């Protein structure tokens, strides 16, 4: 017989707890490192670009960067909620397109519409799309990848059908009321309002996911779906809600898109969904659910946008952007996987040593 009797008396528990604490400290450190890592990458990128072009962060350039990032940041925050539950929403680009076109049409037909009403209307259009997504995923238990892929085409088709039947294939800047146009360029203390809206969205979603019961339940659902069911979490309702909120945010992003570009056709936002998922993954939101934060995803979105604007400044062909984004995604996944494995081995190590 080769076993030794376990005698957890005296100093043993204290030592066990100390080991356990080290594991926890490591977990916290990894979490912080993960988001600091993106910030560091962002800082390096900006630093290098500044050397090549000292005017890279000058007033107008910086404002353009914020404006371009705003839409992706809003979408990434919403997508985070969905991915955390071990789902994905590929229809956000189409939702954005539909919402942008709907808002444009509303403003052209009723030029007196206040900006706030336009914002709410676009958000509502998105929420309805999200409701359909969520209902099919949660009630019919169809994988979200398939459902939202279908919705990607269906919503885009609806958008085109609406545009062609209403004889308005395009909404032009000239037709939009001046109030809405000035909203697109408005600033507070030099910062574009659209960017401030995006920051507010990220703060609210991040705060909600971190500090509210239902927010934590989203993490639980993605971390262990069976355990979530057994512990009485209303899985279907929570997933449905995540899709509705994500849809609403995609709708909001549609209004921001309309305000920024002001010329809208039915192709607005095509292909954007993959950028959004990329931003979330680069920002540390695990595609298998259960981990990540809206803040990380927003940083990811900021990083991807900055790459897009920095590469031309560095004299590189913008086609390099896609390659850079691809490399980042793979690097992020490899990094996350390595960190998870090392953390697991570290936390588990003590069990074996203990015997």
């Amino acid at each position: 017989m080769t076993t030794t009797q376990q005698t957890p008396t005296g100093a043993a528990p204290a030592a066990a707890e100390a080991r356990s604490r080290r594991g926890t400290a490591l977990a916290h450190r990894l979490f912080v490192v993960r988001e600091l890592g993106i910030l560091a990458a962002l800082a390096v990128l900006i630093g290098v670009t500044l050397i090549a072009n000292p005017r890279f962060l000058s007033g107008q350039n910086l404002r353009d960067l914020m404006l371009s990032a705003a839409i992706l940041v809003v979408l990434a925050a919403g997508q985070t909620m969905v991915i955390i539950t071990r789902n994905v929403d590929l229809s956000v680009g189409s939702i954005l397109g539909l919402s942008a076109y709907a808002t444009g049409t509303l403003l052209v037909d009723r030029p007196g519409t206040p900006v706030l009403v336009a914002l709410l209307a676009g958000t509502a259009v998105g929420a309805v799309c999200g409701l359909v997504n969520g209902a099919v995923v949660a009630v019919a238990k169809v994988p979200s990848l398939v459902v939202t892929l279908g919705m990607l085409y269906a919503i885009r088709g609806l958008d085109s059908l609406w545009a062609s039947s209403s004889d308005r294939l395009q909404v032009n800047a000239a037709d939009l009321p001046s109030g809405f146009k000035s909203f697109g360029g408005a600033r507070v203390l030099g910062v574009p309002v659209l960017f401030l809206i995006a920051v507010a969205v990220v703060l609210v979603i991040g705060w909600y996911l971190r500090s509210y019961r239902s927010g934590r339940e989203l993490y639980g659902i993605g971390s262990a779906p069976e355990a979530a069911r057994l512990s009485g979490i209303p899985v279907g309702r929570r997933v449905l809600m995540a899709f509705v909120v994500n849809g609403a945010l995609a709708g909001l992003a549609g209004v921001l898109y309309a305000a920024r570009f002001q010329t809208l056709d039915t192709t607005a936002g095509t292909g954007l969904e993959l950028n959004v998922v990329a931003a979330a993954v680069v920002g540390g939101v695990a595609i298998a659910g259960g981990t990540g934060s809206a803040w990380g995803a927003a940083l990811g979105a900021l990083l991807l946008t900055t790459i897009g604007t920095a590469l031309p400044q560095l004299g590189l062909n913008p086609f390099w952007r896609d390659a850079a984004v691809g490399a980042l995604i793979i690097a992020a996944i490899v990094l996350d996987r390595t960190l998870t494995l090392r953390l697991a081995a570290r936390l588990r190590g003590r069990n074996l040593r203990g015997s």
Partner: protein
Amino acid sequence: MADGTPSGAPAPVVLALQDVSKSFGAVAALRGAQLELRAGEAHALVGENGAGKSTLVKILAGVHGPDSGRVLLDGQPLVLDGPAAARAAGIAVIYQEPTLFPDLSVAENIFMGRQPLAGGRRIDRKALTERCRALFERLGVHMDPDRPARGLSIADQQMVEIAKALSFDARVLVMDEPTAALSGVEVERLFVVARALRDQGAAVLFISHRFDEVFDLCDRITVMRDGQWVSTDLAADLTVDQVVRRMVGRDVADLFPKQEVTAGDVVLEVRGLTRRGVFSDISFDVRAGEIVALAGLVGAGRSEVMRAVFGVDRYDAGSVRVHGRELAGGSPSAAMAAGIALVPEDRRQQGLVMELSVERNATLTRRWKLARAGLLSARRERATAAEWTKKLQVKAGKLSDPVSTLSGGNQQKVVLAKWLSTEPTVLVVDEPTRGIDVGTKSEVHRLLSQLAADGLAIVMISSELPEVLGMADRVLVMHEGRLVDDIPRARADEDGVMLAATGQTARAAQLGVAS
């Protein structure tokens, strides 16, 4: 032995199950089962694996709805339409296998959905940690509330589950084999908590295969067999022998028709096999004609060792030899070519393609041998399948029916057919009779015994002690990733195996448990 029961009138019945039945497809898990839990009692539920205990637990937990019958709480009919409803009714369940969220902290796991709140309905993290720490103090557990649940040992996970059940003041506490993975000290700690709850007036339902614990903790014992209620008696009025006879309901010798075989040459040689953090320094031999059981608790690393031997997982050190020839690690196809076959634990997920027909499944491993110029011939496929299903007496309507329509036992036979048709010399079976009804079980046992008699070397991973003791020529016992004992058939008994599996071989003799 048993704790005395309070004198005078019996305490009121808190929870009752009346005439409850539940079927899964063709298999009836519960047939008119009943149970009665009184306030302030610890009640044991015993029965063989497959007797319906876990199904009954899942009905109490609101996971399964009964097909017929009633659940009464304080005499009032209770509808348990989900785990949330069971919780609201004050029923806490500790499952055999812990169900935690690996990415969330231990404290959050315990208080999920019930986190203490500060202003504005947001979670009060400080209070959360404090309340978790207080719970751990009460349980005598040393664990950091803020560490993630990922990487906890099974025993620690079980303690988290217990803390969870404790954290909402349950009126009924159901424990489904909670001690399977716990050491003696941890079991004692659990019992202190269970007794405290009982003395406060809660009803405790305790499910265990360890009779010393059952008689130590419980006031009354309910025996179940084949999904039916057999008896409920005061523990003080029962002996272990009586309980075992009621559980089995037939002669134990008939259950495991192991033929005596003289072992041949060494076929499988494992030396110093190590996979860091999972198992270490595993060495053993298996001879032709021998059935070697790999026993141990859930999570001891048994399946992991055999997965590494078969090449599904890589190993860091050590060697595997088949017929004296070293096997390249990490390659299931090399293992198959060398004559190893692995019948996995979870046949639904790993062993069968449920939507495909019986014949397709039975010939999956041989599809290249059956093919001509890369095309499968349906006729040859059918002929092979027919041959093997006949040999193993698979009861299927038509061979073209999907496997999902078969009963669990017959599905297991199809998996066996699939692997036996590769003509292996080493057969590894992981939990071969899990979830199979008793009748088919002994057929699977007879089959394994026959195969060994024909000269196959068999490694059987099993959590069912009677099966291990009945079938195995030798019992290898694992504990926390190490091989701790090698017991020949003549010396193998329930206590010896169980003690080795829980890592305490010292207090072997003092338990007077017959089996």
